[in-house]
């Protein structure tokens, strides 16, 4: 049981951030499923998750500011609160990008995708693993395995490059595929961005825990 009002406030913020991270992860997985399965209910669910993430992020922001004003945290406590504000924004941004993917999914209610999705779902599950690494570190207040994060981020970059080349060749062969290929290209691009954000989140946790700056990109 935390002892001081500061510690209680920090624990509350920590659990909200963990919940927000879970929402972001779910939004990413759900948005790619919505696209792959052309499931409009799942796409609509992503919208809901995005809205939840906005509200939660705002709440974390308010709580953190209040804690800073009233408890004046310093040193590791200051780094913690600052990290929570930033990480909360990161997760909210991830949910935003997932919603953009869901928007693209909604265009395919009545028609087929250009091609069956293989690498894009792989990107999504890799992201889910990265967010889990972040969340576990936040939960246990330890540095995440940054090597693993970098490895996964590199994998995302590779998959993105692969998808990019594949889609460009589609477009070159048949310009009528440009619309659909561009959609998938955007999806891959969003996922690649999400991977960056998840990796940066891990680096932020390292600073929070150890006061040491690391670069993951």
């Amino acid at each position, binding site marked *: 049981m935390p002892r*001081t009002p500061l510690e209680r406030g920090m624990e509350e913020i920590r659990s909200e951030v963990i919940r927000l991270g879970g929402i972001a992860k779910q939004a990413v997985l759900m948005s790619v499923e919505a696209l792959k399965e052309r499931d409009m209910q799942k796409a609509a669910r992503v919208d809901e998750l995005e809205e939840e993430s906005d509200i939660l992020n705002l709440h974390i922001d308010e709580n953190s500011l209040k804690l800073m004003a009233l408890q004046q945290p*310093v040193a590791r406590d200051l780094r913690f609160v600052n990290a929570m504000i930033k990480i909360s924004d990161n997760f909210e941004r991830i949910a935003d990008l997932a919603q953009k993917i869901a928007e693209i999914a909604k265009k395919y209610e009545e028609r087929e995708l250009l091609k069956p999705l293989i690498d894009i779902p792989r990107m999504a599950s890799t992201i889910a693993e990265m967010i889990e690494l972040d969340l576990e570190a936040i939960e246990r207040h330890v540095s995440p395995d940054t090597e693993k994060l970098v490895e996964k981020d590199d994998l995302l970059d590779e998959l993105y490059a692969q998808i990019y080349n594949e889609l460009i060749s589609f477009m070159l062969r048949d310009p009528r595929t440009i619309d659909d290929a561009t959609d998938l290209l955007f999806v891959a691009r969003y996922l690649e961005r999400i991977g960056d954000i998840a990796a940066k989140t891990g680096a932020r946790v390292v600073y929070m825990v150890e006061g040491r700056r690391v670069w993951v990109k």
Partner: protein
Amino acid sequence: MESKIEVVGLNAGFGSTHVLKNISLSIPRNRVTAIIGPSGCGKSTFVRCLNRIHELVPGAWVRGKVLLDGKNIYDSDADPVEVRRRVGMVFQKPNPFPAMSIFDNVAYGPRIHGVKDVHRVVEESLKKAALWEEVKHRLSHSPVSLSGGQQQRLCIARALAVKPEVILFDEPCSALDPVATAKIEELVLELKENYTIVIVTHNMQQAARIADYTAFFLMGELVEFGETAEIFENPRDKRTEDYITGRFG
């Protein structure tokens, strides 16, 4: 960062009590340096070694060097009276001389040092201490009628009147309310334009607000010294972190 005072291997104590243990530290010129640490860790003893008033306590001893502009104040040819003029001090409890008028409190030092134009020095010092407007019509009154914050600013004026280069503050706000405290803090920030300031404080937020550099003392040792922002965001030593986050002991 150019240093005004260079402390090298300073040890000090009272009789068999060894209080300060091998302190080395550079105090930057025209900056505010805060000394923080738990009660009894030697903060007061440390600042009192910087102007040779520690040795005035019977049984007190000092070893090591304190270089003021490069010259050791403990050299045999150094004049302690001159050291104390150059390095002034303001104490925790406002301690104006109660039997003297406000004017005479400030004029006392300059008169001893044979200053000619005492009136001008008193006015200047009271202005620098941001007290002139409040007392100019009652200079002949006793300081007893002043508020705690005003008395403390009077003590600052008294310290300024002998034209020091360094001013040591030993917990100058601990007897003051928040408004009076804010005035003293503002004053300290103004004074650093022309003076080098060392301030002992047990108020972490005060150190964070006004100090450029912060030194953390623990049981007579200097644990950490660095830029205040760094100490309060990312201290290097676990003991510093535990102390400033209130998780000590």
